[in-house]
């Protein structure tokens, strides 16, 4: 305890010493000004918000005394604090330590910021005290003392006319006496501050106590875990060490492509024991043995990795970073006419340039094997209302997989892509020549025109390969059948797919058979455009543009004739275009034979095209008809397309597909019911759809590349958030509400980052929000603290008590205080602070520490 009173007396002598006097009056002037302004006006005058505090503001002035420059800071709150809220996060250390609300801090502007010399600090504090009492303010004032690492302060507060509070804080940085590691010892320390001798401890002093314990989850040590479990099973096998390291995200959808750093480094749990009153030191020991489950409230805070807010390039590796590289490749794709040009062009550029490096052949081999290995993927296409607008290929399709592999192939430069593509097409050519089924292509009878053209072409090729295979099969088996068929009567029914219910042929009273028909010829998007082109060229001349459709109709008629040898044109119309048969039957349908009716007027007119085609169509079942689709010709056309594809066209489609597939893969992540994440994901799709839409057919690459790079930025934000969401979700799977709330907190913290430009913004604000843990969620949260293995526990010497699953707190904070009844006669002056209920807090001690670091702050109220 420093001795303050004699100093005060010395001040009387200083009244003529102009330097101090001026200094005091200067402080006084500033304080008067600040007092007069009050918080509202100070905030208007430019008081700054204190970083990471919502409610706390600070205004600062510099003062000179001789050669020394001091800075005086006034910290104040926007809105008043309630009582007993010191454990809240929005509390400044000074407020917490000394139990004050607003305060004045004065310190020299030197490198260390601390008044090293003891008399000087006392003088300084005295000056402030005089100035404050002159202007009738009861702001507490603090001056730092000693070495900054000690975080030592002295302070004073004038409480009305009678009381004065004095403050003092200091720290023991090492070798904390064992006594002070335990609550009992700390309790005694507090008592010793107001009980004169330790021998006459009053038997019962009512000490108010509250405590905050902070626990930190152990580092997730996946490697160790596997080692531990397997070591117990078989000590012999040393190979265990060579096992690939188990990653936290091994079962996340992106793990097939990359492994992300776990954004959640751990959790901090804060357990708070609200105010209790103790009378005996022994009771403290009981508290120390209490379980953390007895605490009044729990708060959880995720320790989120710095990489979440670090925007510097290369810091985050994920789909977003690779997509960025792909966009770069797209930018340079217009430099050459053919993909081969990129591959050949090695001589001029030196190989060390990273933009042209191509992974070794062994890597290409591995990628090709993976792409073309048989086996179906069971990826369910997530049908999304934007997926059609994006014009990509499904993530699990051959081209989708190609794009994903390309992203991670070397550094995804244009040369590497060209090399990979050429090999890819060579492999496809091989499949075609050998009539091998294309892998990763779902066989369907239609072509999805909303996918990218390469995917459409591959769908076409897959179908052509199937048709080619069955053609070959028929050729080898079919010859004998044909001869016997030719000999058979012309009237035999051929190619029937079954009887049409309740339909009889008009002339012969036979059942009508529906024939097998040919599938409508498949067309890719460019073929449709070709037809459109042709239709336009030939104008509206009927018959020329409709050739293909006539072929289909004719094929249907032939098949119908073959299935119903005795049918007439009217029968065909009744089956094929029932609207053109005007029935004159009674309503009940089966009234007599033959059914009365006639062709519609348009069908029966002279020169009707349908009847002409009917008359020309030979009775032929589908198996004997010429195929509407020539698989060999169409297949060759597809390969020609793939082999002569322009680099820019390839890259355009790759960009679309890669964005879509990456998003689809990320979208498969389970992150519980985090609504914010879901909304963001939907927004990503919408943004992608609108950006990628302009990619089709627009030639100005540089314009687009800018948009695409911004899209990568958006993608990165969402990818990071999604990984975070997945991590939080799986760690707090049993406390979904809590997980959601924690994610929402971080999301809101992160939100301002999004929607910014390419420039990364510096993120100074730290994420500090804690979430209150509900009673029913405590079990789930305590599971974050697995009991330490035998291996881990012997490393530590436990010394603080209040263990949580065997973990001791990383920090313990305690507030002791005693209150004394104010006897009426003695304290007549109204004291503005701490005097409600006629009680006044006389001693307050804040202790913060671990087993080898102790910081103690004491405030003592006394009357002079």
């Amino acid at each position, binding site marked *: 305890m420093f001795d303050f009173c004699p100093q005060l007396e010395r001040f009387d002598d200083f009244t003529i010493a102009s330097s101090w006097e001026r200094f005091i009056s200067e402080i006084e002037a500033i304080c008067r000004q600040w007092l007069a302004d009050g918080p509202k006006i100070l905030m208007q005058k430019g008081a700054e918000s204190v970083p990471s505090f919502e409610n706390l503001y600070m205004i600062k002035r510099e003062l000179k005394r001789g050669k020394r420059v001091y800075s005086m800071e006034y910290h104040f709150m926007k809105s008043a604090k309630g009582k007993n809220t010191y454990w809240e996060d929005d509390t400044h250390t000074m407020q917490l330590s000394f139990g004050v609300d607003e305060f004045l801090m004065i310190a020299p502007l030197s490198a260390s910021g601390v008044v090293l010399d003891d008399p000087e600090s006392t003088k300084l504090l005295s000056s402030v005290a005089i100035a404050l009492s002159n202007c009738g303010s009861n702001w507490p004032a603090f001056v730092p003392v000693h070495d900054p690492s000690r975080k030592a302060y002295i302070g004073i507060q004038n409480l009305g006319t009678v009381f004065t509070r004095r403050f003092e804080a200091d720290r023991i940085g090492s070798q904390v006496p064992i006594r002070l590691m335990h609550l009992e010892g700390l309790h005694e320390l507090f008592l010793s501050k107001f009980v004169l001798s330790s021998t006459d401890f009053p038997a019962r002093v009512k000490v108010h106590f509250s405590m905050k314990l902070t626990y930190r989850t152990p580092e997730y040590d996946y490697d160790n875990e596997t080692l531990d479990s397997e070591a117990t099973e078989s000590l012999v096998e040393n190979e265990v060490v060579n096992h690939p390291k188990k990653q936290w995200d091994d079962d996340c959808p992106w793990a097939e492509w990359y492994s992300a750093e776990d954004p959640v480094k751990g959790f901090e749990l804060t357990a708070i024991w609200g105010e209790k009153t103790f009378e005996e030191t022994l009771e403290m020991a009981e508290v120390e043995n209490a379980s953390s489950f007895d605490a009044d409230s729990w708060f959880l805070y995720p320790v989120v990795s710095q990489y979440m807010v670090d925007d510097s390039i290369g810091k985050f590796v994920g789909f977003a970073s690779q997509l960025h590289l792909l966009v770069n490749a797209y930018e340079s794709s217009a430099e050459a006419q053919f993909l081969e040009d990129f591959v050949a062009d090695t001589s001029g550029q030196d190989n060390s340039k990273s933009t042209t490096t191509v992974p070794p052949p062994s890597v290409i081999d591995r990628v090709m094997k993976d792409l073309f290995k048989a086996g179906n993927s069971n990826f369910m296409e997530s049908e999304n209302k934007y997926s059609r607008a994006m014009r990509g290929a499904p993530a699990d399709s051959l081209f989708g997989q190609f794009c994903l592999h390309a992203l991670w192939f070397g550094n995804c430069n244009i040369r590497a892509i060209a090399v990979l593509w050429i090999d890819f097409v060579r492999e496809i050519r091989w499949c075609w020549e050998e009539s091998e089924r294309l892998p990763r292509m779902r066989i369907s009878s*239609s072509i999805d025109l909303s996918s990218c053209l390469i995917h459409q072409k591959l769908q076409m090729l897959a179908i052509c390969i199937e048709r080619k295979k069955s053609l070959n099969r028929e050729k080898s088996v079919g010859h004998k059948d044909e001869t016997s068929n030719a000999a058979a009567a012309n009237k035999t029914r051929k190619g029937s797919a079954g009887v049409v219910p309740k339909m009889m042929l008009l002339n012969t009273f036979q059942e009508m058979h529906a024939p097998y028909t040919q599938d409508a010829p498949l067309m890719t998007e460019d073929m449709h455009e070709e037809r*459109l082109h*042709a239709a336009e*060229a030939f104008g509206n001349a009927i018959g020329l543009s409709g050739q293909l459709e006539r072929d289909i109709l004719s094929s249907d008629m032939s098949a119908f004739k073959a299935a119903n040898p005795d049918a007439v044109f009217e029968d065909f119309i009744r089956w094929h275009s029932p*609207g053109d048969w005007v029935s004159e039957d009674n309503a009940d349908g089966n009234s007599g034979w033959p059914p009365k009716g006639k062709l*519609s007027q348009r*069908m029966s007119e002279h020169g009707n*095209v*349908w009847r002409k085609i009917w008359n020309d169509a030979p009775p032929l079942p589908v198996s004997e008809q010429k195929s509407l689709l020539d698989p060999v010709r169409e297949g060759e056309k597809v390969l020609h397309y793939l082999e002569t594809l322009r680099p820019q066209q390839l890259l355009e489609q790759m960009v679309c597909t890669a964005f879509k597939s990456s998003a689809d893969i990320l979208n498969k992540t389970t992150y519980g019911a985090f609504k914010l994440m879901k909304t963001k994901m939907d927004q990503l799709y919408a943004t992608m759809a609108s950006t990628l839409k302009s990619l089709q*057919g627009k030639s100005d690459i540089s314009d687009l590349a800018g948009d695409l790079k911004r899209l990568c930025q958006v993608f990165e934000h969402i990818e990071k958030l999604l990984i975070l969401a997945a991590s939080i979700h799986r760690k707090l799977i049993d406390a979904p509400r809590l997980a959601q709330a924690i994610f929402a907190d971080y999301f809101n913290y992160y939100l301002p980052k999004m929607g910014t430009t390419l420039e990364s913004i510096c993120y100074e604000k730290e994420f500090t929000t804690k979430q209150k843990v509900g009673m029913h969620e405590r079990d789930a949260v305590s599971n974050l603290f697995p009991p330490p293995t035998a291996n881990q526990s012997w490393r530590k010497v436990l010394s603080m008590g209040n263990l949580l699953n065997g973990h001791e707190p990383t920090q313990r904070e305690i507030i002791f205080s005693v209150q004394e009844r104010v006897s009426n006669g003695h304290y007549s002056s109204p004291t503005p602070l701490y005097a409600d209920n006629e009680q006044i807090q006389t001693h307050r001690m804040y202790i913060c520490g671990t087993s080898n670091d102790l910081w103690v702050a004491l405030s003592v109220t006394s009357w002079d």
Partner: protein
Amino acid sequence: MDSSSSSLSQQPEFDYLFKLLLIGDSGVGKSSLLLRFTADSFEDLSPTIGVDFKVKMVNIGGKKLKLAIWDTAGQERFRTLTSSYYRGAQGIVMVYDVTRRETFTNLSDIWAKEIDLYSTNQDCIKMLVGNKVDKESERAVTKKEGIEFAREYGCLFLECSAKTKVNVEQCFEELVLKILDTPSLLADASSGTKKNIFKQKQPEADGAASSCC
């Protein structure tokens, strides 16, 4: 199809190209509507085989427009074939015959679903058209029912007659004006024209000569 070689540096002869599509049951009069609109004539036409196609240049809302109107066959057999024509259409006209009730009910049972399934333009304008109002005596679907359906499905509605010419012009005009009012569709129609074969094409004769295959 690269016809750029034949394209001379000539001003485009239109501001926008719109692709419109006519759908609906067989025999409701889609082709007749189209014939009335493009050639202002009416005759009993053979049923459409698969798809048919007509082009008309119009001036609507102060813009020169080229309308490419695809007329599809209503027969079920052609449905897989016609489905690919929904792609990129800015306007879809659903036609029914006011004298045949099933052609009206099939719109919601079949055709509206086809649109959802195959249309690639989210904002594409849909129009409901009841044809053959000249046969007022045989009417089986009331105007009110038509309005109800249009409201429910969010589309334009008009009753017309290809035979008597009533409301045919208005029907296409209304549809086109609505498309002109929809920015996202316009973006398609103009940016698309850059690579669209229509824009690169020269007047008829030239185009026919240069067309390949």
